[in-house]
């Protein structure tokens, strides 16, 4: 790959149902924390990258321009990028290009989402992600299409809803140790399955909440990284892939776009056997089944086998391959782009041994973060590691 790139600082706001702060203020809170953790100031930043998803949440056209005020992008190179729900893990990939190309030395990467501005509920904005001619007139929403995908995943592999409900139990438990968490809880599988059905087979407690929040990291080239910290966390591999928009023509049982993105990242990192070489994972978990679906796409479980491994404790924080030690979107919350960036922050804190009560108690070599979105269509993957 190009020049070596590191993460040297991270910051995050609390994820909440309705933040009192404006969107730029949320950005500022995360960005200033990230700068402080890196021991750097805005003057040290060469370029600013912003990740945020639909403009419709905030009701602001050219939302990136509006948010740039909070991210300190004054008289600096600034771009906003997005790939739907995959944005939070994509923004650091976008920053990686800025640094691995040699064009810039340092980058501030901020992801923000304020969904509560969208009244009465952000599902109203989500209707406008569908094709205006063939789909929108049917009034679809995300719960319906993800229920379809879950059904297909369960039908192909003979998976039960009890097996899938375990993801919520694990992640909401893990989130109890996250200071930003919105929905940490100690639950049982029965409690998850007793929660109301939103769109069969999806129950309320299998769905991540709508949230407000922001998260940020500081990324630098190798020279700067070594000068500001003795614990840089390296971005060893990045991958991203976007599948066709015609989602109705695809078999939804397996996220082939995640596999494609994952191998791009693994090849860059020199990882040949991810299930053995990856120490822990932060797959995207807006719905329970998605974590399992994505673990398979990430090549961390054989197709259809992730539910069985989950039941055996394989993905617990003290298991062989901890998955979503942060608490994930189901536990910490889901301010879309900020939720993906939260996963990058978790990789950074875990690999530095700074995750507090969430810390995985084993030697960590590589962590992988992944996000997903659009019309069940995009995979974004980042592999981060310590010097091996």
């Amino acid at each position: 790959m190009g020049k070596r790139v590191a993460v040297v600082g991270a910051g995050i706001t609390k994820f909440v149902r309705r933040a009192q702060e404006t969107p730029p203020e949320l950005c500022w809170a995360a960005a200033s924390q990230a700068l402080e953790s890196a021991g750097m100031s805005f003057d040290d930043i060469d370029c600013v990258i912003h990740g945020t998803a639909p403009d419709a949440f905030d009701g602001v056209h050219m939302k990136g321009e509006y948010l740039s005020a909070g991210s300190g992008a004054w008289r600096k190179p600034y771009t906003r990028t997005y790939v739907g729900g995959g944005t939070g893990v994509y923004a650091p990939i976008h920053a990686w290009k800025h640094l691995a190309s040699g064009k810039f030395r340092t980058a501030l990467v901020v992801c923000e989402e304020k969904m509560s501005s969208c009244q009465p509920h952000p599902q109203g904005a989500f209707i406008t992600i569908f094709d205006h001619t063939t789909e929108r007139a049917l009034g679809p929403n995300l719960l319906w299409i993800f229920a379809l995908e879950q059904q297909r995943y369960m039908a192909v592999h003979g998976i039960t809803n009890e097996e899938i409900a375990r993801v919520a139990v694990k992640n909401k438990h893990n989130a109890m140790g996250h200071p930003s968490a919105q929905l940490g809880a100690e639950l049982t599988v029965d409690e998850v399955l007793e929660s109301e059905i939103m769109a069969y087979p999806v129950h309320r407690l299998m769905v991540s909440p709508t949230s407000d929040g922001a998260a940020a990291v500081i990324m630098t080239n190798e020279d700067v990284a070594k000068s500001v910290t003795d614990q840089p966390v390296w971005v060893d591999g990045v991958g991203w892939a976007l599948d066709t928009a015609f989602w109705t023509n695809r078999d939804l049982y397996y996220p082939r776009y995640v596999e494609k993105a994952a191998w791009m990242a693994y090849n860059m990192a020199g990882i040949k056997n991810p299930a053995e070489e990856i120490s822990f994972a932060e797959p995207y978990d807006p719905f329970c089944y998605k974590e399992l679906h994505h673990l398979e796409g990430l090549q961390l479980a054989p197709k259809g086998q992730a539910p069985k491994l989950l039941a055996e404790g394989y993905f617990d924080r003290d298991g062989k391959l901890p998955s979503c030690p942060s608490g994930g979107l189901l536990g910490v919350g889901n301010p879309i782009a900020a939720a993906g960036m939260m996963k990058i922050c978790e990789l950074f804190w875990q690999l530095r041994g700074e995750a507090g009560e969430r810390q995985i108690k084993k030697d960590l070599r590589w962590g992988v973060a992944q996000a997903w979105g659009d019309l069940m269509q995009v995979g974004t993957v980042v592999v981060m590691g310590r010097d091996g």
Partner: protein
Amino acid sequence: MTGNVAIIGCGYSPVRVTTPEVSYRELTFEAASRAYADAHISHEEIQALVCCEEDFFEGVSISDEYTPDQMGCVLRPVETVTGDGLHGVGVATMIIQTGEIDIVAVEAHSKASNILTFDHITEYALDPIWNRPLGFHPEFVAGLEMNCFLNESGLSVADCDVIAAKNRRNALLNPIAAYPARLSADDIANSPDLCTPLRQGHVAQRADGVVVLVLASEKLAKKAERPVWIRGTGWANESPTLESRPWGEDAATKAAATIAYKEAGIKSPSKEIDRFEVDDLYAYREAMALTALDAGKVGDRVNLSGGSIGMGHTLDAIGLYRTAMCVEAIRNGDAKTALAHSWRGVPTTSVALSIFSVNHG
């Protein structure tokens, strides 16, 4: 620059006031087909794609969903930048310079004719707490800025009339322009006032169009027929808040140009650059951009395409239309080095630019 990158393919649709018979996807397919044919490649050889667009212009949320199919880039690394096409050129150049990817397509389009309430949408770009409740028309921002710039630069409204008339006349020689007209400065001066001192004739009118570029690493570009080398790229923002920006100068362009000139090794822009295709969404912005680009006295080399006043304002595709004009000028031997520059319009301060050359220096 670290690692040379060239444009090896360029395809576009003619700029038109309206295109009722085709969708933006069909227009994009047409431009992509032309770009790939120009580069002598098939869509299967494109390794990554960068698209530039905004949700509210598209009428679709997370409109990046609908980018890969018509470009022939399904299941490949595809991203969307909410910027001008020239931001996309900068990003695509960096992708190639990482050494991981050798060939990248850049796409931007405008289907402005689908937008029934453009001014209302622009109003939604105003700060929702401090500015939008005041209820002013967004073009008022341009009027304010023009007033301040003229005051500080010593230029007059009549100078802006001359610029607008020049660009409409230049477009007469551009076969893809949507708004060519044999107008005089007096004609512009007689157009209605919009937000004083801004006149209707100073404003670029919207149009439809798509541009697709194919960028390649030096390894591949050397085998191409007529590569146009990217010598430098730059982009920057100033303060997004109306209350804290410098109104009389284009500080963002100055910052972006500093980066691009350094990469291209350009010390005297007016001597070393043969052709300028710069922002003219409003006539005064052409003069403002040239000042920020440190390119005084180059009047006969500016916006020979007709600019956006003559060609049409194709939203975030306008930077790529300017790029296409630079590419053609270099390929035709009319210029050795050319600069394309864009601003994203009111109320933003967001700009991007690139410098292109017949050789890679």
